């Protein structure tokens, strides 16, 4: 099932249960998977047209009236384009608004570099009080949606909108501020967010075949990061690799290093190396930007080799 379909199904449940839950679009309802909800919830769905700034501040106004708005767009337009509206209308004013950015990083594929946000987590993460959540698969997304809705405050959902392989078991229990350890290992910890979690697990299996036991921790909530789990795991394994579909500046790598700032632990990064995206399909983009299982394996080995050297 497509991630956006899961998201829309869960939103529909929330709207059916609470008339104050509403959704605002900026002409991308189809892309977000919510277009069909307009007929079912005509008093809870609002298309603002191509005007993201207005959408964000209108949501804040609705929140001041007791509504619980979700605003949607592609990640670059849901974050960097409306950075000040998120900062002031929403976060500074303590407005209960959920911001949903679809097609993060290289998943923007054929829309290319202009639509490929490599900095959205960094932009949002540096705004005080923001929560940032990025799901791995539909099981985690489905488990998270009611929890995200119940969280009272400003939150950014970074949503891969197409179908993804399932990583989590059906009985998965989601905790918003708790990272999930998917595999234990003694030699290094791979901290990973979003759809690359599957690749990190694949890489861990390859590493195991070569005698390197990797622990794999899914950091679904990048802010506030689960410092306790991050520090405990990194101390136990003594080496760290972060894996993300985002610039290595400002995203998961930065968040993990901030948590480990007082630790003497080598940390390497698989992520976008401070460059813009470009047009192409996922397999090409993975190769072009180094977001491959092979690169995860090699960089993990480098992290392990740095143990005791630094």
């Amino acid at each position, binding site marked *: 099932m497509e991630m956006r379909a899961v998201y829309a199904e869960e939103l529909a449940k929330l709207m059916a249960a609470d008339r104050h839950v509403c959704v605002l679009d900026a002409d991308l309802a189809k892309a977000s998977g919510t277009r069909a909800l307009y007929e079912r919830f005509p008093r809870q769905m609002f298309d*603002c047209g191509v005007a993201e700034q*207005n959408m964000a*501040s209108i949501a804040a*106004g609705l929140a*001041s009236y007791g509504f619980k708005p979700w605003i949607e767009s592609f990640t670059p337009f849901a974050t960097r384009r409306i950075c000040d509206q998120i900062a002031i209308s929403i976060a500074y*004013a303590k407005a209960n608004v959920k911001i949903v950015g679809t097609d993060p990083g290289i998943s923007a594929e054929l829309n290319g570099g202009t639509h490929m946000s490599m900095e959205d987590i960094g932009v949002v993460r540096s705004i005080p009080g923001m929560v940032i959540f990025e799901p791995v698969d539909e099981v985690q997304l489905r488990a998270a949606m009611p929890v995200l809705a119940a969280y009272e405050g400003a939150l950014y959902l970074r949503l891969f909108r197409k179908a993804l392989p399932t990583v989590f078991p059906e009985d998965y229990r989601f905790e918003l501020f708790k990272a999930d350890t998917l595999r234990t290992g003694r030699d290094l910890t791979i901290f990973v967010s979003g759809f690359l979690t599957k690749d990190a697990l694949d890489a861990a299996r390859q590493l195991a075949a070569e005698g390197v036991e990797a622990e794999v921790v899914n950091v679904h909530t990048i802010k506030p990061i689960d410092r306790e789990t991050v520090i405990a795991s990194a101390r136990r394994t003594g080496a760290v690799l972060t894996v993300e579909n985002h610039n290595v500046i400002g995203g998961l790598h930065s968040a993990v290093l901030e948590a480990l700032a007082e630790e003497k632990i080598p940390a390497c990064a698989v992520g976008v190396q401070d460059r813009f995206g470009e047009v192409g399909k996922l397999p090409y983009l993975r190769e072009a930007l180094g977001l491959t299982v092979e690169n995860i394996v090699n960089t993990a080995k480098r992290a392990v080799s740095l143990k005791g050297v630094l």
Partner: protein
Amino acid sequence: MNTDLKTICRDIRCDILACIGHLGVGHIGGCLSLVEALAVLYFREMNIDPAQPKMPGRDRLVCSKGHAGPAVYATLAERGYFDKKELLTLNQGGTHLPSHCDKNLTVGVDMTTGSLGQGFSCAVGAALGSKLEGDGATIYAIIGDGESQEGQIWEAAMFAAAKELDNLVGVTDYNKLQIDGPVAEVNALEPLAEKWAAFGWNVIDVEDGNDVEQVAAAFEHARLGRGGGRPTMLILNTKKGCGVKWIEELGPGNHNTSLSAEQAAAAIAEIRGEA
């Protein structure tokens, strides 16, 4: 409650000068130009109760030109939302009265504003919320003329008309001056009334936005003409720094300027006719 609007305007002006004079600096020009609009709203037009600042169904004011915070606070204090003595804490560390309006800090303030253009969209959101709740409230939104150069103002204008938010009354404080000079020279707004009309709004052009009778008549006209799916924009032709001659004469320089306690006292005497 005092109902004589002229006396109220005089008192609000004096409060603004006193609190900015106490601090020594502030956004004085754009506070003084707004006094008549705020007096009419809080003492005649708005359905509010200072004893119940969160009263459901109340009318709301969004001062999108958030730097006019001191004018809003002076009006709220005169209306009885909090003690007038608190006005002297303006912009002091730990105050409930920051330079720009903050709904989480000040009793009676319904929207956080300060980044220009955003408050107007927030007001549109509140107007939409009121329609959905069916509570019959009117949402008032004050914008600056310089602020009207923000693209977001026009995004909001388009949306409000498209969604038929006739419970929304905008107010443009058209004092013709902004920080870098006359609005007409920096980035001209004219024809302003025609722009709002073209966006689907009722427009009421008030010749002298510092004549409290004209302002009162305009708000009444807006209220009686409410309905029909069109939001209303009042364009108040005002004078930046209105009420104190030397401040008016500073021109664009009065946007954010120093004001000593002595200057404030003299200005207050001028307004009270004691100079």
